């Protein structure tokens, strides 16, 4: 975007410059032409002036000749004939000059010819009348008619020269008008062209200053970016490098030196110099990865160790990608980061995990073994009790009988506890198979397990159609059967237990309970009963192992069943919540993630 802008700007400036150059050339051309015109006009004026002068000359010569001639006629003194004799020569030379001056004007040439004829006839008239003067025949009719004719010719000459004079003046006027309009128009033209050029130059200047401002801003940004990169490299513990493959030239960023434990730019950036830091055991792998990079042009992330000069070992991670410059030069741009902290943490975490796993395994093995091995002696105790009761029962006193009953119920309770514990430890084992299962079938199986007590209590169970979900089958069946058993066990006396199981698919963000949800969609299954319920303040306690809200004598729970439910739901990345109201009932809500 910016690049395009600058490109457009450059071509714009170039065209402005070309345009300005063209305008200056144009002005030069016009100026030259105008000066030439001016010169022409001056020449025309001069010429007109010369023509007029020559015409004046001719007239004055002729006038001199005429007046001399008149004096000659009156005095007969031949001295007065000199101007007359000189006139012919002078008029002729003036004619030649005039001919040269008006040679480009055919009308004037024609006039000149007429003038020439007129002067010629004047001179021939002179000669003819002169003869009369010499012979002193001035009183004759012929002389008088010649003299009269002479007067007429001179008038004609005057008129003719006046015509030529007028014509020349008229031409001069036309030229002057031309010149005037020329000289009026030219400055205006110059001025406007100069103005336009000036505007162009101002636009160009404006453009250049805007560009400069842009470049300055960009430069500033680049500077900030560079500094930010520098800082982020220091904070993020990474550095970058460029490898110009053809010229085998390297450049490291300052922080890459720091990662190696060296001062920035303190040694020449080369491949071999870098290799000196790589841990001897990792050199081979590192080199192999670099070879791969040259062939695949993209270095797979490579992890290796380096040894700094002070002997400390660091874990580095490098990634690089090749780029081609505008002129086709291949360059590899890489990023190397110090992951020592992370790796040390991972190692620590792994160690912790291993320890935890071991502890967990031991615990669950202990739990399983304990509950499993406890079964055997307990079973024997129970069997012996049953033998004692059967064989020797009638030999006991009343209190003895009572003690026996107490032993029996204690043993029964212990069996219950052991069975539940065993089940709890089984739900702990991680190696369970998740398969897509029809929850309806699992619920039916659970119901089957409870068939006897359902029948006994005449419980009414209604259920929505459940979905197919990927679960650990036996655990979900266990979950259903524990919840059913819970509702049946804590039913109100003299009331038919009603258990409703509802199902809906919900979005996590629409359920206020699901603030810790990791998935977006959940299957929501609720078990609602009309049993004795519980105080809402025990809602969390209810899922704790061995936690009981009721007296053992009233209700026979072990406090394990709901813990198992919680564990099962946890195993499925789900959630379980309990809501209760005393003597109204309890609701258990299960959320299982939609796979």
């Amino acid at each position, binding site marked *: 975007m910016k690049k395009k802008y600058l490109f457009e700007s450059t071509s714009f400036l170039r065209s402005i410059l070309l345009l300005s150059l063209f305008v200056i050339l144009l002005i030069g051309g016009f100026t030259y032409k105008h000066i030439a015109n001016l010169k022409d006009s001056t020449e025309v004026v001069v010429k007109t002036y010369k023509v007029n002068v020559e015409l004046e000359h001719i007239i004055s010569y002729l006038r001199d000749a005429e007046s001399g001639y008149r004096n000659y006629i009156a005095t007969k003194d031949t001295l007065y004939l000199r101007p007359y004799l000189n006139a012919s020569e002078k008029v002729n030379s003036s004619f030649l000059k005039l001919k040269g001056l008006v040679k480009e004007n055919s009308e004037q040439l024609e006039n000149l010819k007429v003038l020439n004829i007129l002067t010629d006839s004047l001179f021939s008239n002179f000669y003819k009348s002169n003869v009369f003067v010499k012979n002193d025949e001035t009183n004759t009719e012929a002389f008088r008619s010649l003299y009269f004719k002479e007067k007429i010719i001179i008038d004609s000459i005057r008129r003719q020269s006046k015509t030529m004079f007028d014509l020349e003046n008229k031409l001069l006027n036309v030229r002057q008008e031309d010149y005037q309009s020329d000289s009026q128009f030219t400055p205006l033209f110059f001025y406007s062209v100069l103005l336009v050029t000036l505007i162009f130059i101002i636009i160009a200047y404006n453009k250049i200053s805007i560009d400069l401002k842009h470049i300055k801003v960009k430069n500033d940004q680049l500077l900030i970016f560079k500094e930010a990169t520098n800082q982020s490299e220091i904070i993020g513990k990474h550095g970058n490098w460029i490898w110009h493959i053809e010229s085998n030239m390297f450049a490291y960023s300052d922080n890459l030196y720091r990662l190696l434990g060296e001062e920035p730019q303190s040694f020449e950036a080369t491949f071999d110099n870098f290799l000196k830091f790589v841990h001897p055991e990792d050199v081979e792998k590192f080199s192999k990865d670099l070879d791969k990079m040259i062939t695949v042009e993209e270095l797979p992330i490579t992890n290796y160790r380096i040894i700094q000069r002070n002997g400390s070992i660091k874990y580095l991670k490098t990634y690089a990608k090749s780029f081609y410059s505008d002129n086709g030069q291949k360059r590899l741009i890489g990023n190397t980061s110090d992951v020592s902290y992370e790796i040390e943490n991972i190692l620590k975490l792994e160690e912790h995990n291993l320890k935890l796993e071991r502890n967990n395994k031991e615990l669950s093995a202990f739990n399983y073994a304990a509950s*499993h091995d406890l079964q055997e002696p307990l*079973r*024997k105790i*129970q*069997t012996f009790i*049953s*033998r004692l009761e*059967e064989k020797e029962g009638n030999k006991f006193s009343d209190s003895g009988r009572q003690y026996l009953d107490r032993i029996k119920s204690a043993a029964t309770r212990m069996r219950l506890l052991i069975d539940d514990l065993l089940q709890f430890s089984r739900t702990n084992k991680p190696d369970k198979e998740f398969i897509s299962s029809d929850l309806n079938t699992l619920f039916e199986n659970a119901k089957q397990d409870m068939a006897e007590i359902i029948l006994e209590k005449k419980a009414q169970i209604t259920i929505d159609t459940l979905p197919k979900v990927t679960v650990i089958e036996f655990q979900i069946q266990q979950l259903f059967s524990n919840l059913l058993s819970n509702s049946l066990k804590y039913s109100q006396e003299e009331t038919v237990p009603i258990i409703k199981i509802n199902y809906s698919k919900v979005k996590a963000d629409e359920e206020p309970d699901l603030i810790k949800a990791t998935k977006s969609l959940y299957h929501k299954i609720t078990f609602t009963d009309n049993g004795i319920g519980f105080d809402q303040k025990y809602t969390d306690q209810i899922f704790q192992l061995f936690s009981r809200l009721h007296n053992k004598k009233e209700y026979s729970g072990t406090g394990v069943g709901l813990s198992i439910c919680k564990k099962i739901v946890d195993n499925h990345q789900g959630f379980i919540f309990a809501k209760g109201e005393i003597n109204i009932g309890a609701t258990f809500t299960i959320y299982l993630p939609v796979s």
Partner: protein
Amino acid sequence: MHTDYIHIILADDDEDDILFFTDAFDELKINTKVNTFKDGEELMNYLNTDKAVMPEVLFLDLNMPKKTGLECLSEIKANDKMSGIAIAIYSTSASEEDIEKTFVLGANIYIKKPADFKNLKKVLSEVVSINWQYHTNSLNKDNFLLRV
């Protein structure tokens, strides 16, 4: 070959259980002859002798010293002479794992030792009166574990 009584063998290391077992058969008044062995090795040694009488039903505890019930089971099923014996697993626990393993190895029924003597008698009488031919044909994972 005597046909007037049912020949039964129990291999179990627990003296109390042996006592319950023999007492139960005594009280059941079924014409049975019960042989007991204290561990798996003793049992196999007996079965491998020429004079050994193959029982109608062999009750096999799983957790025994020297040779476990599982080892005995696989040896018996691998032996042509013995493979016809109906084998009832007789164990304290009924873990999924044990049930699965013994079923795969070819045991005929799995009994979890009852905690009540009356129940014990009921279970044992049921087991000895099973028609093994019929039972084995319809045997599956669900009816493998005997429920009382």
